[in-house]
């Protein structure tokens, strides 16, 4: 039923004990979109205030993103691959942008990358650095391995706008829908004040190499791990 990573053992990330694992893709999606995949890892982390070092990194990152960079990025393999995926799924990437393009446009509109605390800032940095869409959910509320499948009739992410269309491609686990492809996480799975561990998921598309997926996950995991340690040594937790 599900496609599993069978050739290689889970790889340890730079953070230590975590390992990147392959998720699953529903057979109809795997047949239609070769290369579509989910990779994920978990990290022990809580939602904390963004450390100064990360804010500095975001400032540096924002300085690298100019109008010309955004224009050029359309031709770069990774952002382009997700545009193609969006287009093939019937989503107009100029209207409902891919995560990396959405962040780039936000950067141009706001003149910078405003800090919104962890884990959001970790997602922003990982996505902008690699172009790979990354999302973070509460790992303790995850049931089994995350993957991709079409939504069934009546499924929802919770909330007023969480209703899913039948057949909509979503992240899901054994319990049900986890998130939309644009990174909108189900209300009952999202990171909250009681979160102690986070699951970081990266969406893989055709033509995106494994190292780029791994790098996106490592960046996010490393930042969340470091932010948690700094917060422990210097309490003052704010979201």
């Amino acid at each position, binding site marked *: 039923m599900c496609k599993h990573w069978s050739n290689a053992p889970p790889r340890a990330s730079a953070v230590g004990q975590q390992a990147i694992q392959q998720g699953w893709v529903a057979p*109809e*999606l795997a*047949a*239609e*979109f070769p290369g579509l995949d989910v990779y994920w890892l978990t990290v022990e982390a809580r939602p904390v205030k963004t450390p100064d070092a990360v804010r500095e990194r975001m400032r540096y990152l924002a300085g690298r993103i100019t109008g*010309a960079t955004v*224009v*050029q990025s*359309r*031709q770069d393999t990774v952002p*382009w691959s997700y*545009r*193609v995926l*969006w*287009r*093939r*799924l*019937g*989503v*107009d990437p*100029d*209207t*409902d942008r891919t995560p990396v393009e959405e962040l780039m446009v936000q950067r141009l509109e706001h003149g910078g990358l405003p800090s919104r605390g962890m884990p959001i800032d970790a997602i922003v940095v990982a996505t902008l650095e690699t172009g790979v869409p990354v999302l973070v959910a509460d790992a303790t509320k995850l049931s089994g391995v995350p993957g991709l499948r*079409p939504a069934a009739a009546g499924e929802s992410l919770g909330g007023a706008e969480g209703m*899913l*269309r039948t*057949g*909509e*491609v979503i992240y899901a686990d054994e319990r049900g829908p986890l998130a939309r*492809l644009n990174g909108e996480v189900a209300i009952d799975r999202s990171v909250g004040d009681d979160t102690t561990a986070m699951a970081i998921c990266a969406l893989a598309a055709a033509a995106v190499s494994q190292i780029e997926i791994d790098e996106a996950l490592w960046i996010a995991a490393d930042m969340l791990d470091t932010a948690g340690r700094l917060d422990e040594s210097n309490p003052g937790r704010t979201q």
Partner: protein
Amino acid sequence: MIDVLERSSAAGHPLQPRTAPDERPARRALHGQIERLERDLAKLFATSWPRKGLELTVDHPSGRPRIRDLGELEQIRDALAERVEDARRDLRERHAVEDANRRLIDDMLRHPEDHRWVRVSNADIGEPGCHHWHVVPRWGFIGMFANWWRVKISSGCPLAT
């Protein structure tokens, strides 16, 4: 042959195919075409910068991400193809105008008196920045009456206030 047809009619399924058509090759071909057209559109997007007013958005409604049927994939492909074609044509026309403007700048520099008060900006030749070439008289009114003209080249964008 006639026997076979009669037997089929008697069974109630005259010449009905017993297998559903395999859509996979058609779907693969459409996905490939969408990929190629999206690449062409990305190139046009990058090439057209910093020109303004070129329409590069695809005229196809955006929906929730799902597996599209053949008809929808064809519509997406057609909308992309139409946009790429239109954008190429618009860009060709812009290039022709910009080439003419470059030649005009050359001529302005050689014979400024033939192009009095003409002003050409970077945008007119498809370049970024605020640079412009402006044919003005030397020494104000004296130059106007004496037919002494020159091309004044601006130094760039005004400073931000």
